[in-house]
């Protein structure tokens, strides 16, 4: 594991750049623990100050130091993405492994439901969810809802691997030596699907952060917990662009774009690493 990672960083430029980008973002989010101001206090600094040495990213019209506010926002945004990813990974793994291993009617039923979740347009459903929840909408609730909706694509991927694992000899050895289905899935098959799970995790974090940003920019979440989307929402509420407070929009957007590209590079390079054919294509004949 450690050795694979070291090789990836050394030989795969995409992986290395992804790691660097995400390390910067993660370090920045850790700065929130040293913030001199609590995240929701306003008018602690003079409003509308452009970026300078005293305020590296300027201040907002609500009198907040954007640098520290942004560190809170990116921390919450990352936490949100990771929460959704972890919960939906569990769902995707259980459904994918069980469907792929058992096959037959159970597999077909699970995959029909799975395909349904891939097809259904999630955004209107999430908006409807916000509409009926209103003030009761919270960060955790949204994460849970999105995890329940966002496992399907990856479950299908895991299932396809599990199907091929079922025909391998070690599975039969396991069955004949009296292992239970759960043991076979967890002890024998899980290690094989973990690399794919890693790459889908990155994609899933990307997906959930993207939806969270979109929903909060429109004001369809709990707008009192600072996330990147909520930050842009407040900037729009104060018509920051028209007022010429460009830094209030620029820094959150730039930071979240860096996060997206970093996660995406990790996912792509990991995918390539898993598929040896494209790895050969990279080194060339």
């Amino acid at each position: 594991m450690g050795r694979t990672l070291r090789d990836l960083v050394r030989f795969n430029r995409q992986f290395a750049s992804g790691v660097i980008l995400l390390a910067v973002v993660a370090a920045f989010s850790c700065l929130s623990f040293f913030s001199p101001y609590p995240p929701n206090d306003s008018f602690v600094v003079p409003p509308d100050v452009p970026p300078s040495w005293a305020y590296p990213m300027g201040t907002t019209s609500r009198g907040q130091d954007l640098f520290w506010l942004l560190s809170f926002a990116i921390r919450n945004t990352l936490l949100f993405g990771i929460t959704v990813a972890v919960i939906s990974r569990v769902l995707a793994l259980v459904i994918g492994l069980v469907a792929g291993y058992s096959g037959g009617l159970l597999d077909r039923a699970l995959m029909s439901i799975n395909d349904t979740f891939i097809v259904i347009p999630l955004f209107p459903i999430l908006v409807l969810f916000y509409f009926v929840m209103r003030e009761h909408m919270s960060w955790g609730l949204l994460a849970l809802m999105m995890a329940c909706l966002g496992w399907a694509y990856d479950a299908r991927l895991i299932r396809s691997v599990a199907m091929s694992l079922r025909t391998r000899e070690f599975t039969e050895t396991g069955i004949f030596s009296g292992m239970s289905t759960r043991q076979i899935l967890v002890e024998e098959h899980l290690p094989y699907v973990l690399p794919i799970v890693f790459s889908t995790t990155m994609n899933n974090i990307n997906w959930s952060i993207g939806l969270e940003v979109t929903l909060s920019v429109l004001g369809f979440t709990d707008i009192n917990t600072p996330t990147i989307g909520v930050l842009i929402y407040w900037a729009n509420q104060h018509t920051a662009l028209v007022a010429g407070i460009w830094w209030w929009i620029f820094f959150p957007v730039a930071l979240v774009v860096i996060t997206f590209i970093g996660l995406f590079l990790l996912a792509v390079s990991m995918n390539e690493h898993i598929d040896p054919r494209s790895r050969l294509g990279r080194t060339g004949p």
Partner: protein
Amino acid sequence: MNGYPVYLLTRLGQFALVVFIGINIAFIVTHATPIDPVEQSIAAATQYGSTSPEAIALMRQSLKELYGLEGGPIDQYFAFWRRVAVGNFGPSLSAFPTPVSVLIGRALPWTVSLLVVSTLLTWVLGNLLGGLAGYYRQSRTLRLGGLLAMAFHPIPYYIVAFMLLIVFGYLWPVLPISGGYKMNMPRDWSWPFIASLLTHSILPILSLALVGLGGWFMGMRSLVSNIVTEDYVVYAELGGVERRRILASYVMRNALVPQVTGLAMSIGAIFNGAIITEQVFGYPGVGTLLVSAVYAGDYSLVLGITTVSIVAVSLAVLLIDLLHPLLDPRVRAR
């Protein structure tokens, strides 16, 4: 030819299942939450000034009728399905007394045309460029293009649309950034009107295309670069078949099959993107309608749009699935 009817039936079954589960999710979301839409609407209506208790009781009764919230949960469930089946979601509260179905019907052509044009454009262009990039691996231009497409791919629709809005609205204001056509223009299908329609659709289409291109490009490139090593391609090359013909009918044709499946699978996500993009550019489609309905607290309109979206997206997937056998003869022969 035995395979086609079976294929058709399974696809129709899948369509029915998607609609069934989707509508059920909408029902559960609206009914399992602790918040009562009737009380919410009453609170919104009585916010200003005092209303007599009798009037509120009357309002509660008529709203319950309007929202189909009378009787027990099972009655409500069937009432919900009846409304979906006949497409009647009652009058809109924010644009009273216009029926919700009329409002949606007015917005739907905008969304559908935006979706169809941008999806076709993105899919064709992405696959073409990706196929070329996979076949001519040494080309520097194609590599650079791929890098650009991939840079935009992971960014969500909202952020890309927002960045385009800033660039073309504030930094270099050459394109209209809001609306579907020039305000107050007569909708007479004259040349100026059509030109205005086209210029207003450039930015929404561009933002959808920028996000979408990378996915098709990468998918096609990796598919093609795997296919070119197959024996039949090598054989065709050795046999002196023209390179262009190899690429078009030996390589791309085979690689297209999974890409069509991919299109069917991502229609839902593309639809989400279109809704969001519309809202950014104030395009008069379903997305803008949905967001303004939420702001106006219009329960029947939000519910109507959600159900119509679920049905429309599953229909689009069904259509692509039905076209699939034309491309892949194995489906017909199975």
